[in-house]
């Protein structure tokens, strides 16, 4: 199975690279890939922060100065501006040399700076976000290759597409059909469709890769776990022998080498012996458990030739050839059906043909808008789950089985229950009667009747 996973991993890399390249090319026409954009964005953010800090400082300090001294805080404000804004972030206004001394000039400058920085931030933010999305997408893509989890593959896909969504929001040019093609072949080979298809293909191949990994992995892991467990058991038995002989044995060395830390049964048995209990009998149990398990496993492995394969579930591993074949076939069918159905849903020509729309709408500009897709998308998209629901409902596959007891067994259970209840009831009555008799006997004794030894002994217990 590993080879299939590697093939699909390669396919995933290729489709991701293709998708990334196409997105890069599509965005390149907008001249957005300025490599200094992230740096500029960060600097702009800090400049904005310095302005905000300056404003907060002058408000606070001016108030304090006025309250405590009654003096004009003009000098303080200009000083702060010169220090926090001009000197620290190099925002010296054009044509002005040296520090500003006039408070009115400072405030006017502050206002101008703020507007300029905010506008600059707006511009830089998008450029920065494109880089951020691309970076996140690549990082998630790499994670998906190694961790084999769907969330990383989906994250890489969504991050990459977010670049185009943000660009659309910003008003940049992104791939688009001027007019949606009426011809399926034109649509199929259109660069816009190819970008969409490759993006979809990336998601498909990544998911197939994860499937291939997860369908083969449990068997491989099982085999590895069993190997470790058997090794750990063998070592534990040797260790137990050594302990009995009185040799000193290191616990940690064994755990690390054999993976016994993941093997709770053994660890418990070993720890009971070595780490700690003072009770020699408990140690004897631990030794006995390990030995018995070893003997049991040895017996199974020698008496049953299939035992090892069953423990590893080797036979459960699907054939690589079949997985490759079914992956190619399944993906091809899915691509074709998705492209064909989507064309039918989006194409205005199909819409007008199928829906027999009024002539006014057919000739309107609205028919050429993407929103028209909704006319067929919603009912058709809901039709599939509905069909699945009907099929499931008819086949009743989710009914949880009830354990079946034969009539005789049910009767027997009921009889047993009734018998126990009856016995309990009788026992309760007898007990009550005995209590009553005991009390009467006590009364008689109190009236001077003779007591036997048992009665006296009982009385003593109540004293």
């Amino acid at each position, binding site marked *: 199975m590993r080879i299939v996973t590697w093939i699909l991993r390669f396919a995933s890399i290729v489709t991701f690279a293709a998708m990334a390249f196409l997105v890069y090319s599509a965005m390149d026409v907008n001249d957005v890939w300025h490599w200094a954009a992230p740096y500029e964005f960060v600097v702009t953010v800090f400049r904005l922060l310095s302005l905000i800090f300056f404003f907060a400082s002058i408000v606070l300090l001016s108030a304090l100065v006025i309250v405590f001294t009654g003096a004009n805080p003009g000098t303080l404000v200009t000083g702060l501006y010169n220090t926090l804004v001009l000197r620290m972030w190099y925002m010296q206004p054009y044509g002005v040399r040296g520090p500003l001394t006039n408070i009115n000039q400072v405030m006017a400058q502050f206002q101008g700076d703020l507007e300029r920085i905010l506008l600059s931030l707006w511009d830089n933010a998008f450029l920065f976000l494109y880089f951020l999305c691309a970076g996140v997408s690549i990082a998630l893509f790499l994670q998906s290759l190694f961790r084999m989890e769907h969330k990383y593959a989906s994250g890489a896909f969504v991050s990459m597409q977010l670049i185009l969504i943000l660009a*659309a929001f910003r008003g940049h040019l992104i791939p688009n059909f001027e007019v949606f093609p009426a011809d399926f072949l034109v649509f199929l080979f259109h660069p816009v469709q190819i970008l969409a298809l490759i993006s979809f293909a990336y998601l498909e191949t990544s998911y197939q890769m994860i499937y291939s990994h997860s*369908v083969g992995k*449990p068997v491989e892991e099982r085999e590895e776990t069993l190997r470790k467990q058997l090794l750990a058991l063998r070592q534990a038995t040797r260790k137990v022998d050594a302990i009995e002989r009185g040799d000193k044995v290191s616990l940690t060395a064994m755990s690390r080498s054999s993976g016994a830390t993941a093997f709770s049964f053994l660890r418990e048995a070993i720890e009971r012996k070595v780490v700690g209990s003072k009770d020699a009998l408990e140690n004897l149990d631990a030794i006995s458990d390990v030995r018995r398990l070893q003997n049991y496993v040895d017996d199974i492995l020698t008496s049953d030739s299939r035992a090892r394969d069953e423990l590893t579930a080797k036979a459960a591993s699907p054939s690589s050839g079949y997985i490759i074949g079914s992956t190619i076939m399944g993906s091809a069918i899915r691509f074709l059906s998705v492209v064909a159905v989507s064309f039918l849903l989006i194409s205005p020509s199909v819409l007008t043909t199928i829906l027999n729309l009024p002539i006014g709408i057919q000739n309107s500009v609205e028919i050429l808008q993407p929103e028209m897709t909704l006319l067929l998308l919603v009912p058709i998209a809901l039709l599939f789950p509905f069909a699945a629901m009907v099929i499931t409902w008819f086949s009743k596959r989710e009914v949880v089985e009830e354990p079946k007891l034969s009539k005789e067994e049910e009767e027997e259970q009921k009889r047993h229950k009734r018998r126990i209840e009856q016995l309990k009831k009788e026992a309760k009555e007898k007990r009550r009667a005995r209590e009553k008799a005991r009390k009467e006997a006590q009364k008689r004794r109190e009236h001077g009747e003779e007591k036997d030894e048992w009665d006296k002994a009982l009385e003593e217990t109540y004293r």
Partner: protein
Amino acid sequence: MITQRGFAVVFSGVLLVTSGFVWANFYLTTLGVYLIIGLVVTLPLFALTANIAGIQIDREIDKVKVFSGDFVRVRVTVHNTSRRHFDFIEIWDQYPETWILAIGENFIASRIEPGSSITFSYILQARMRGRYNLGPTDVVMRDRLGLHYYKRTLEAETEILVYPTWKDVRRMEALGKQRQLGLMFGAHRTKIVGMGTDFAGFREYVPGDPFRLIDWKTSAKRGDLVVRQFEQEKNIQVVCMVDTSGSMGNGYPENTKLEYAIRAAVLLTHLGLERKDLVGTCVFSEIVHSYVPPATSPNHMYNVLESLAMASPSGWGDYESAVSYVVEQTRKRSLFIFFTDMEESPAPLLNAMKTIVANGHRAQVISPFGPWFEAPVGQFGPVEKVLSEAVSEELWERRRKISRALAKFNISVVNVGPEDFLPTIIKTYEEAKQRGVAMF
């Protein structure tokens, strides 16, 4: 059923489609439609092919009755009886919570072809006696991309009876072997000197002794007449009265008073069978749950184990009914050993003892003292410590009074904790043998 992952794909699709609408962009719309259609287009096909009812599970175990602490191999075979393959099927075979998975895994995820089967196995260690069920089995079927799933729980369960632990017997045998003192160090057979054929020793000649018993060789060596003595082995009959009232279940799960009582009964039965003594067991609370009369048949041990395996602490202890029930069925003189915490009213216990003594039997009480089986005092805070000490004192005073009352009738009460429970029972048995109590 659409998985969480499937819903994430739908939301991504909706995001792209609506983005396409907002900016009048066909690329975003097309990609969104691809995602939505890609998710739903295979749904009917999946529902049609995912005939999860076509999955059948067979579970096999190598033993249906095991001792607590023994290992059991569970083989699970998954058959696909349908005509379709399952791309991704997960199978979780459940086992009792208290058991330990020793080797292998109880889970498999794979693909299964039509008409084929997958077999996997794992080894469990059975813990805690009782009747258990292996299963049910959860079967989850997913499509390749993990967007849809169906789940089914196969309720078929495999019953397995777990006898009380055999470790005490093993432990005793191991110690016996180590010390090379036979089966149990310090163990002696009860013998009556004078009869039988086993040579017991010499003693001085007393007028009236038959001449054939004089050992001339030894007499010549000693210079005095000496006769040979012979002995005959006698056996005793013991009945273990195991109290399973609710209070016997207090303590840590594997260290309750009842668990120790059961272990003691198992040990005693084993010792008795080894020495050809008769040991019976009565499990009772407010009713007699089971009674295995004293016997030496080969199946006797298993009968006792089965009755003890099913014992569970509940209700109150009706000593009188239990004793009447057993006494009615016991003709020979017997030693009744009670395993009870004596937390009930003393009157029924004394009455029960009265019945035992009146019928010519002997009795002894091995009484686990509750606080010794529960949380160690060291783990308590100051308030709990004071409370627990007060409760302990109260309980101790109570049982002291009962012990004193019973002692008047030669019935001893031995207070035991987890550490000395089993040694005490061995000692009691040995003493009974040596004193020749309840011989038949």
